[in-house]
């Protein structure tokens, strides 16, 4: 599975949360590969398991959450088997994360400089003056003006966009190979969002790290991602390049999602929403998770989970409807479900 160029491979990941009402299956068998220096976008609605997948990689799940099965291979090694002490090294040095809300992810009682330096001291062997120099260097890199002055200020003296820059500086301070960005711009205004996205792209080019971009915003994903994974109900519906997903969607959910967003030329036309409400993760349907909301649902959708197959134009989707199209196109012979690609 782990080829040389894949820096991170997630294989059949299952993550669940124990709650009073039962076990919540947040992630149900997610697999993906992240190539070094690429941007992978994970898109889905709330409750689709996109953030939980990201947190599983970092192993920063809530106390009631656990990885039930599956592997997370970092450079070929399964990090789910690593002890906590080794994971601590992994976080920050190999893989960093930035969160949605820059307002709450910084500690209000310490200066920006203190928090930045803490991360640098923990994960690198710099000492004394070097640490401070590195902190200033990082702030400069993410476009904070007058970093020498700003590092003595507290988070409340920074605006939302500036705080997110500090978070990025902190995440990149130890030169990780992977940066996980969990809804990094959702709390920001559009003009500030454009600044931050541009910055992330620049830094990615400059430093060559791989980025996992988790978001619900199809616009952001279209702009940033090389490869896209569409998630629904804790499973991967469809994966492919940005062009595959936006111009040649095969899964009914992806199609519905794209139809339901207002576009430049949708003015005056009606939007076509997906009917119904998102699924309840407490009792997952036996078949396809999207089936209760799918207009094109067939009998088999209710009964069996669709395997992931190569679609007519070459990317991957898990949809019986797409499989039907492939059979019609003579691409595949009818095979036993679960046999995958």
């Amino acid at each position, binding site marked *: 599975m782990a080829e040389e160029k894949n820096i991170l491979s997630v294989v059949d990941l299952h993550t669940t949360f124990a709650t009073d009402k039962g076990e919540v299956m947040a992630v149900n068998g997610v697999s993906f590969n992240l190539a070094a220096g690429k941007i992978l976008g994970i898109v889905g*609605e*709330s409750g689709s398991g996109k953030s939980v997948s990201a947190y599983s990689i970092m192993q920063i799940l809530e106390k009631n959450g656990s990885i039930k099965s599956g592997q997370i291979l970092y450079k070929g090694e399964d990090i789910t088997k690593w002890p906590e002490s080794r994971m601590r090294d992994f976080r920050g040095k190999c893989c960093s994360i930035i969160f949605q809300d820059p307002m709450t992810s910084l500690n209000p009682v310490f200066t920006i400089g203190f928090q930045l330096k803490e991360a640098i001291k923990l994960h690198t062997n710099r000492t004394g003056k070097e640490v401070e120099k590195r902190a200033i260097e990082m702030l400069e890199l993410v476009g904070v003006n007058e970093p020498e002055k700003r590092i003595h200020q507290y988070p409340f003296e920074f*605006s939302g*966009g*500036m705080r997110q820059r500090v978070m990025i500086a902190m995440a990149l301070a130890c030169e990780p190979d992977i940066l996980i960005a969990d809804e990094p711009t959702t709390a920001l*205004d*559009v*003009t*500030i*969002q*454009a*600044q931050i*996205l*541009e910055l992330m792209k620049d830094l990615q080019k400059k430093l060559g790290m791989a980025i996992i971009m988790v978001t*619900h*915003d*199809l*616009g*952001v*994903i*279209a*702009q940033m991602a090389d490869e896209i994974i569409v998630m629904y109900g804790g499973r991967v519906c469809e994966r492919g390049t*940005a*062009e595959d997903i*936006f*111009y040649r969607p095969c899964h009914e959910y992806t199609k*519905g*999602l*794209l*139809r*339901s*967003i*207002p*576009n*430049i030329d*949708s*003015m005056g036309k*009606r*939007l*076509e*929403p*997906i*009917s119904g*409400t*998102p699924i309840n993760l407490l009792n997952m349907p036996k078949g396809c998770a999207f089936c209760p909301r799918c207009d094109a649902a067939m009998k088999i959708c209710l009964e069996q989970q669709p395997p992931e197959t190569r679609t007519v134009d070459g990317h991957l989707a898990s949809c019986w409807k797409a499989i039907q199209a492939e059979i019609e196109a003579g691409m595949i012979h009818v095979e036993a479900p679960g046999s995958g690609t």
Partner: protein
Amino acid sequence: MNMNYKPNPENLVEVNDLKMYFPIKTGLFSTTPLKAVDGVTFAIKPGETLGLVGESGCGKTTVGRALIRLYKPTDGDVFFDGKRVDDKSILGLRKDMQMVFQDPYSSLNPRMTVEDIIGEPLDVHHLYTSKADRREQILHLMELVGLNAEHATRYAHEFSGGQRQRIGIARALATNPRFIVCDEAVSALDVSIQAQVINMFEDLQKKLGVAYLFIAHDLLVVHHISKRIAVMYLGKMVETADADELNSNPMHPYTTSLLSAVPYPDPKIAKSSKRIILEGDVPSPLHMPSGCPFRTRCKYATEQCAQEMPKLTDRGNGHMVACWNK
């Protein structure tokens, strides 16, 4: 307030030079006015949708709230159907002017059933003849927004975000208003649900002829739903135009950069388009720059911009722009 101001009888809602200042304590004895809204003028015709966009802190929500007098405006005139809206007349007018709030989680009382939430405006305005009539009206409203009759006895926490927003909309529709302020009414919803609610807003407008002031920060959504769009920056209105005109021919430098910053859900457009990235942040409204508030981030800014705020002037076909240089 300008007592001599005469509203245009064609307009359902007319706002002239609305100002809303909040006093902020800046010292032991001193207060500074925070100019949340500073001279905003616009009009909405019956059955029309005006979209109001701008970034956080630009005063768009304050405009909506001052309009239906949840705040008492510092200065300016608001007219509804030719009548001046003031402390006295608003009591009679609230029936016609309703509001849908952003957060479907906190805008509904968790101790009330759906029936009571939707029925409350009917109680307040005495809009039913008998208990049976009240119930019938409530069920009709629920049907209108796509809720089942059996939901009536449930509590708000039993519903998903999209359904809660429907309850909020049913409540706003209960008094049969002619005008609804929708303050970020779809922002908290997932895309697939958002589309359902946007469609519902449009259907209700066609069916009932209500006018909307649609306040949102998502430009694609606003462009979809609105006939006209007004753009605000730091309490001032910088541009208003028909939705398509604004999208294809933005004149104010702020509007231009705002539109270019919108991430279009289309990889080719998104990756190829030239983004005009604005430098820096929005200045604090407590220390507003002199003259045009946008000049600190504007690449066309001149001496004149620092001295005087440009007026909104018509550049043809009702495309109004407040800029010295464009």
